[in-house]
């Protein structure tokens, strides 16, 4: 058991080094930090230094940034790293290490690298925000960081699932699939839900939208973060409808947490099973 753990950590460290050396990680870290700084700074700079850009609204903009960039980057980095080069899979899997350990180790390493890249952005933005607006929003800020990590884990897991399904058929296909997954979960899902809702009577439409928000990981993180940051002003009357559906804030937190944990656990487990069964 102990040996398996140390093997896992070894794989993780190996992957972390690879990921950190990758141009993609470096570019992501820089872009994310630059955009986060822009979001944090814009509230003051664009309004000539006297805007009421309170922490809640800055957090709301940061949420948008996280929702757009983090799933995409996690999927692409995961797809790139987890579909091995031709021949590498045979070499790797012939080692006396369980495939499960290899995969989970790689995931862990990737997660560390991406988490570090995001921490850089959050930290840089945080210095600006807190220095300007005081530390009142620190809890929300950290919660937002946590949401970002959760999204990273979920979408890395999805990338693993995609890559595990088709180790032999090459990287391009996995990358394309990853893009489709991102497109569906982050962009199409909401649009479809809104479209369907417009055909339903208002009670059913409300329930559909609320359930959609709970089911989709990107929506779940966004809703949870904004509700935590701004309270019921985040979505106006819709917040109240949501909280009534979940029987209060505790129920809302629980349901969101359950949804996110399922998304974090299920894809990697499926990926491990598929990888175990696949013929390299």
């Amino acid at each position, binding site marked *: 058991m102990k040996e398996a753990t140390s093997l896992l950590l070894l794989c993780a*460290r*190996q992957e*972390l080094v690879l990921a*950190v*050396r990758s141009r993609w990680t470096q570019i992501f870290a820089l872009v994310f930090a630059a955009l986060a700084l822009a979001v944090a700074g814009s509230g*003051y700079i*664009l309004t*000539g*230094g*006297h*805007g*009421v850009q309170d922490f809640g*609204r800055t957090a*709301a903009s940061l949420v948008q940034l996280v*929702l*757009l960039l983090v799933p995409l980057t996690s999927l692409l980095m995961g797809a790139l790293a987890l579909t091995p080069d031709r021949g590498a899979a045979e070499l790797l899997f012939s080692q006396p290490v369980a495939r499960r350990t290899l995969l989970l180790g790689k995931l862990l390493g990737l997660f*560390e*690298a991406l988490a*570090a*890249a995001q*921490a*850089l952005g*959050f*930290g*840089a*933005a*945080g210095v600006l925000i*807190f*220095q300007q*607006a*005081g*530390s*009142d929003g*620190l809890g929300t800020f*950290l919660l937002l960081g946590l949401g970002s990590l959760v999204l990273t884990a979920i979408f890395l897991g999805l990338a693993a699932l995609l890559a595990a399904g088709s180790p032999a058929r090459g990287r391009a296909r996995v990358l394309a699939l990853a893009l489709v997954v991102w497109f569906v979960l*982050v962009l199409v899902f909401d*649009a479809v*839900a*809104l479209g369907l*809702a*417009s055909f339903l009577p*208002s009670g059913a*439409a409300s329930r559909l*939208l609320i359930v959609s*928000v709970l089911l989709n990981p*990107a*929506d779940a993180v*966004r*809703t949870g973060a*904004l509700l935590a940051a701004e309270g*019921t*002003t985040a*979505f*106006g*009357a*819709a*917040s*109240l*409808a*949501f909280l009534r559906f979940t029987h209060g804030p505790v129920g809302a937190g629980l349901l969101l947490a359950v949804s996110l944990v399922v998304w974090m656990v299920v894809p990697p487990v499926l990926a491990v099973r598929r990888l175990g069964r696949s013929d390299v």
Partner: protein
Amino acid sequence: MSGSLWAALALVAVVGGDDAAPPAAGLEGRPSAGQVSPLQARIDAAPAGATLEIQPGTYEGDLFIDKPLHLVGRGRPVLVGSGEGSVVRIRAAGVTLEGFDVDGRGGGDLGRDTSGIHVAAPRAVLRDCRIVRSLFGVYLREADGSVVERCTIEGIRGKDPGEKGSGIHVWNTQGFRLLGNQVTDARDGFYIQSSAHGVVRGNAARDLRYGLHYMFADDNLFEDNVFENGAAGAALMYSKRIVFRRNRFLHNRGFASVGLLLKACDRVTAENNLIADNARGIFLEGSYDNVFRDNVIAGSDTAVILYDSCARNRFHGNSFLANLSPLLLVGRRTDTDFAGNYWSGNPEPDLDGDGRTDRPYRLVSVFDHFRGNLTAADLMTQGTAALALAAAEESFPVLRPIPVEDPAPLAAPQAVVPSATEIRAVRSLPGVLVSVTLVALALTVLARGRRKA
């Protein structure tokens, strides 16, 4: 003295007392013998125009004042009502009452306007009084030129709004002045009807239904008042030429609550008001020629609700900050002039530096039709998908909604808003420390790639 004699005296007073105007039907007269205050005898004995000093103590029973007197409470005497009718009934012009605590004991009858202090004569002055547990706090009925100043009114907590009256109720009273009063737990803070040329300044109404409820009353001035935590900050109907300056309409946060509601009101001017954290900021229906200038409308679900039954309204120099949606237009068209306001949701830059952003700001979005009939839609209308759809629609308008826009939006808020330095909290350190730690951690991890594995 027998009860029947008191009743006869009361009848005389009612029939022949006031030569200005016969008291209207339903007006509470002299309290009956069992309900009268021990102070009544002193009032009846005093000559008109006298000043009576009332010593500290508790005086149980109702008081009837039918001649001009100046009553001064020393050491805050407490007037505890009978619980059957108004505690103090002012029926003669020129009565002044100051420094009393009035307790209505939660009793009386809404239909008879039972109040802490009920005034049905001109030129009353009520000053530094505290009125608790009354259906109405102060009732000015045909009381031209009356003044209510620095009074505190605490209504009946826990009683349903429909079962109690207003904090200060003004009916058919010209030239009234309400200055520096505080009202809580009433039905409406201030109810003003059919009363003109009044001044309402420096008052606060909190934790009630409407802060200000207002009908058929023209030419009144509201300055420096606070209306907060109600179903509506101010609801005005069927009135003209009202001026609002530097008032604050805050935290009216119910399901359909409004900061400032105008229905069939014309030529209202609202300047430098702060309308913040309301479910809906400003609500306009059937109203014409109103001007909103240099106000701050912030933190609303919808900043302005505008019916197409309105016309010729103008919004200039206002700052619309952090509202979920700037405008909900009910109907097909509007001629409202929105030129020259600041909109915090406006992403356009001001490249030529003329203080205006370079393109008009559109006040309606693709999702507005959802908001009207489906509240849960707001859960998604700010999501990434919705932003993408909105951006696409902006670039390639296929829907072409009703064009409402600010043709020359301000690049920076013009009105006085709290500056970053004012709202800056002192405790920057913890947040900055955490952030720096995050950066350091990140750099440590990222630096690993440089070393040999």
